[in-house]
Structures are given as structure tokens and as C-alpha cells.
């Protein structure tokens, strides 16, 4: 069975009727990899690549609203530094042209670069059902456990919303310069009210926010002391493991380094005169 709707209404209707029997697919950069490895044999597909408008990005009221099928290539061209750099750090052009932000959120890999950038932007994700309608979930509440999310088997990710003009920073440590899976990645967003949103990838079962680190800089600002203290506090926010890419010890040390580095980078940005 292969369903290829061209409207969102139709896609939601098929999703509600067929649920897990039809695997929603967009770029296929996770799903078809698993199929080629013999790890996944879907009974059928709900192809989202022909749904009109689902790949679009719009902006209104100081926020971007991107469709679930917006590609990494599209996101890499947005003037939102952390998200654009995260998107550009995924695969090569051929992967970025296919892989989508919705797919990144559904796969919910701890190393999902787009997820980490969106957490630092305090993004909202819109989950839609044909008859129950749409619900908006803050991304920080969306990741429930290792590759477990708030998305139900009869829903689709329709939109992701995030602010347009926050000061953000991004850094990814990997094994090489390109087509690179994170060993540790970090994104930080500073809201216009001066609140910090610190997110990390590959250091826990899901992409995470770092509330202990955030608390310190939200309270004390970006003094040298507060930056050092916040960076050290991130050790309490993470729960890294040893795997073939890196040791838990290395990941913890790099989390500290990246939080300090990106907070300093944001401090430099805040000092710059407004453009």
C-alpha cells in the first residue's frame, strides 16, 4: 500500500484511518537506511513529499513557522544561526535536500542536530489529527525517552514554530568535517528578555535542555564566573554513555567546554551594536 496525498487534509485522514499500518515517509534518510539494513519492513507508506505546502517556511509576528516536510537544505538558508548551522551540519547536499525537520523530530535521535537547535529556540511543535484537531506541544515536553515522543500513531507533525530574532549559537563536535554524526553538539538561544535556553545532543537518551546551567546564567548573567559555573553545572543536566563514537567522560568534558564557549560567543554578540 502506498498513499501519496497532495493535501494535508487527505494526509491526516489517511493517517487517522491507517495509523501505524502506513509508515509516514518524507526524505527517507532514516527509514530507507533501516530498510536497506534489513531492520525495517514497513507494510506500506504514507508519502508526505507531495503534500502541498508541507515543505514551506513562513514567517509572521516575529516567528518562523515551518512545515513538517521542510528540508534541512531549506532550514540551512534561514537567518537563524543555530538552526541554519545545525541543518548545514547534517549529511551532504544530497541528504539535506531530502531529510526533513519533521523526520528529525520523529526519529528523535539523541544526536538529532535539528532537534537540539530547536530546543535552544524553545520551539513549539504542532501535532495534528484528522478529527481531534491540532495540539501544540512545547518541544521541551515532546521528547519522552529514547526515541520516544509525544507524537501519537494517528497524528502527523504539521508545523514547527520558533522565534526569528533570538541571538543563537551552535557547535558540533564530530569525528570528521562532513557527513558527520554528533559526538556532542550544543545550541544556545538568548531571548530578547535575556533568558538563556541551553540545549545539548548526544549526551542523554534524548536531545535535552540544561536547566541547571540555564538557572545560573539566567540569575547571574554572563560574567566570567557565571559562565564557568554554568558550564560546570551542565554535568548535572547530562547523562552521557560510552559508545563507539566517544566515551561518557569525553562527552561530559566537551559539554562543559561547549557551554562555556557558546555562552562567551553569545556575550560577544550581545555587546555588538544592533544591526
Amino acid at each position, binding site marked *: *500500500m*502506498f498513499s*501519496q496525498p497532495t493535501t494535508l487534509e487527505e494526509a491526516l485522514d489517511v493517517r487517522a*484511518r*491507517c495509523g501505524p*499500518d*502506513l509508515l509516514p*515517509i518524507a*526524505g*527517507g*534518510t532514516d527509514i*530507507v*537506511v533501516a*530498510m*536497506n*539494513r534489513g531492520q525495517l*519492513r*514497513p*507494510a*506500506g*507508506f504514507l*508519502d508526505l*513529499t*507531495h503534500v502541498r505546502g508541507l515543505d514551506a517556511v513562513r514567517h509572521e509576528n516575529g516567528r518562523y513557522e515551518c512545515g513538517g516536510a521542510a528540508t534541512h*537544505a531549506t532550514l540551512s538558508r534561514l537567518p537563524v544561526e543555530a538552526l541554519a548551522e545545525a541543518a*548545514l551540519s547534517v*549529511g*551532504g*547536499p*544530497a*541528504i539535506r*535536500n*531530502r531529510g526533513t525537520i519533521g523526520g528529525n523530530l520523529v526519529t528523535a535521535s539523541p544526536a538529532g542536530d535539528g532537534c537540539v537547535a530547536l530546543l535552544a529556540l524553545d520551539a513549539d511543535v504542532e501535532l495534528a489529527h484528522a478529527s481531534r484537531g491540532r495540539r501544540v506541544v512545547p518541544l521541551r515536553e515532546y521528547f519522552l525517552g529514547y526515541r520516544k515522543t509525544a507524537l501519537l500513531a494517528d497524528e502527523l507533525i504539521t508545523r514547527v514554530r520558533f522565534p526569528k530574532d533570538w541571538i543563537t549559537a551552535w557547535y558540533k563536535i564530530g569525528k570528521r*568535517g*562532513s*557527513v558527520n554524526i554528533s559526538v556532542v553538539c550544543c545550541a544556545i538561544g538568548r531571548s530578547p528578555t535575556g533568558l538563556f535556553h541551553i540545549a545539548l545532543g548526544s549526551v542523554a537518551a534524548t536531545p535535552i535542555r540544561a536547566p541547571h546551567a540555564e538557572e545560573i546564567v539566567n540569575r547571574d548573567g554572563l560574567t566570567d564566573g557565571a559562565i564557568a559555573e554554568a558550564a560546570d553545572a551542565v554535568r548535572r543536566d547530562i547523562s552521557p554513555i560510552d559508545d563507539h563514537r566517544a566515551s561518557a567522560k569525553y562527552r561530559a568534558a566537551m559539554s562543559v567546554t561547549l557551554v562555556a564557549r557558546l555562552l562567551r560567543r553569545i556575550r560577544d554578540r550581545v555587546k555588538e551594536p544592533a544591526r
Partner: protein
Amino acid sequence: MTPEADEMVAVELAINGKPTHLVVRPDETLLFVLRDSIGLTGTKGACLEGECGSCTLLLNGAPVNSCLVLAAQVHGGRVETIEGLAHGDKLHVLQRKFIESGAAQCGYCTPGLIMAAKALLDETPNPDEETFFRGMEGNICRCTGYTSICEAIRGAAREWSR
């Protein structure tokens, strides 16, 4: 409704400009349909994970890993493969430069490299270092002929932008 993986899907697409009608299984990739059903074996499969780039072709003008695209998804699309580059005996400038620079050793990565390079130069005829690197990342050569590969693409870029 009982979904069955062996239900066939009708797909209309253009392959190298030629309107083509296909009937595919929902789980067949574009790579294998091109190679096994159509006989266009220029596009190579290697890692089948989107890591190596040898299966790169252009879908609606943009490079994609054909090992990760389901053929049924390409309905209504425009596919360009390595077989579509030459006009009769007249080679495409990228093909000519790859030969002149000795940029193919075993040749397995070459079709993917050439299609990725075509996408790059179609968009940016005279790419700077950063754009060149970003455009070509994701295509690897295990004979490590990168110096001659870069020379070939730069040579093509010089003719392209003239």
C-alpha cells in the same frame, strides 16, 4: 484496509528527459529500479545508507541519494542520471575533465561525483572554496583520488563560467 507490501504502484516520471511509465513495489528504491528494471546501471549503489554518495543523481535538479528515495515517491518527477549527460559521442564537460585529469581510478564513485558536481556548478558556476567543499561533501572516493577529482571539477568550472 489491509496494506500489502507487494501491491504495485504506477509511477510516471521523466528519466533523462524521456517520459517513463513504471510499475514498482512500494518499498523499491529509485536506485534499484533504475539499475534492475530499466537497465540504467551508470548509477552505483555502495553503502545504501547515504554515507558514500555513489548513487547520487539529480531529482528535479537537486542532488539526492537514490538509494534512500523510494521509486514511488518520484511520481511526477524529473530524474537525471549519468547516462543523460553526453550528447551522442560528445561528452559533457565534467566527463571530459574527469578523463583529462585522470580523476577516475576504479571509477565506482565517478557517476555520483559527476552528478554532484553538476548540481554544484548548475547552481554556482564558479564556486569559492567553501561552496565547493559544501557542494561536494557526501561523495567519497576510496581510491583517494581527491586531488585529481577536484582538479577535474575546477577545470570544468573554468569552462562552465566562461
